[in-house]
């Protein structure tokens, strides 16, 4: 069955430090992969997506992610974190059923940024 695992529930980094958020997936074919960010009490904003091609994808707000098929991973990175990056981050994979638009979301990683 398809699944998404975000092994880190909470991560704390200092402002200016680098960041890597982990995402592992289980999927029978080449998946579509997404990272979303959610500020408290708000909806989700799409950071970046991977469908095919270059395995290193660039997103908004200085984020990037790398698709590694051999490791079934799609980790999110940022070279220098800003205080405004504090939020919850969700990885998603899909579609969960061919021909549909159903996606599976991870349980999220909450990022805290220390000044």
């Amino acid at each position, binding site marked *: 069955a398809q699944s998404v695992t975000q092994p880190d529930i909470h991560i704390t980094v200092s402002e200016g430090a680098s960041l890597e958020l982990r995402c592992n997936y289980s999927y029978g074919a080449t998946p579509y992969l997404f990272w979303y960010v959610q500020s408290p009490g708000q*909806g989700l904003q799409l950071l970046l997506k991977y469908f095919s091609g270059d395995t290193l994808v660039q997103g908004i707000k200085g984020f990037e992610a790398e698709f590694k098929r051999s490791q079934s991973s799609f980790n999110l990175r940022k070279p220098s974190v800003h205080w405004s990056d504090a939020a919850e981050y969700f990885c998603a994979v899909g*579609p969960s059923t061919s021909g549909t638009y159903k996606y599976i979301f991870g*349980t999220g990683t909450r990022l805290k940024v220390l000044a």
Partner: protein
Amino acid sequence: SQTIHQWPATLVQPVGSPLSLECTVEGTSNPNLYWYRQAAGRGLQLLFYSVGIGQISSEVPQNLSASRPQDRQFILSSKKLLLSDSGFYLCAWSVTGTYEQYFGPGTRLTVT
């Protein structure tokens, strides 16, 4: 540009009362529409999705129902709320042929 609206933003309802949450999308035609529920520490759970007017797919047996009376309107309803219906409800849309979803601001529902 496309925008998505949800209302109300917050709602406190007693157990056994009815529910109606509304989602509308502007700036696009024939979107795919989704209702998710988000519980703390549990990610997003897809409740319903719709690829057209009157076409609703239910993902999880539950106390809720959805309807799509117009192309860009998606409504989440319940006849009698349960305590377990509390949560943060998110509406999303996507365009057929693309796969990214765009989310609304959400509705915080507290059932007391």
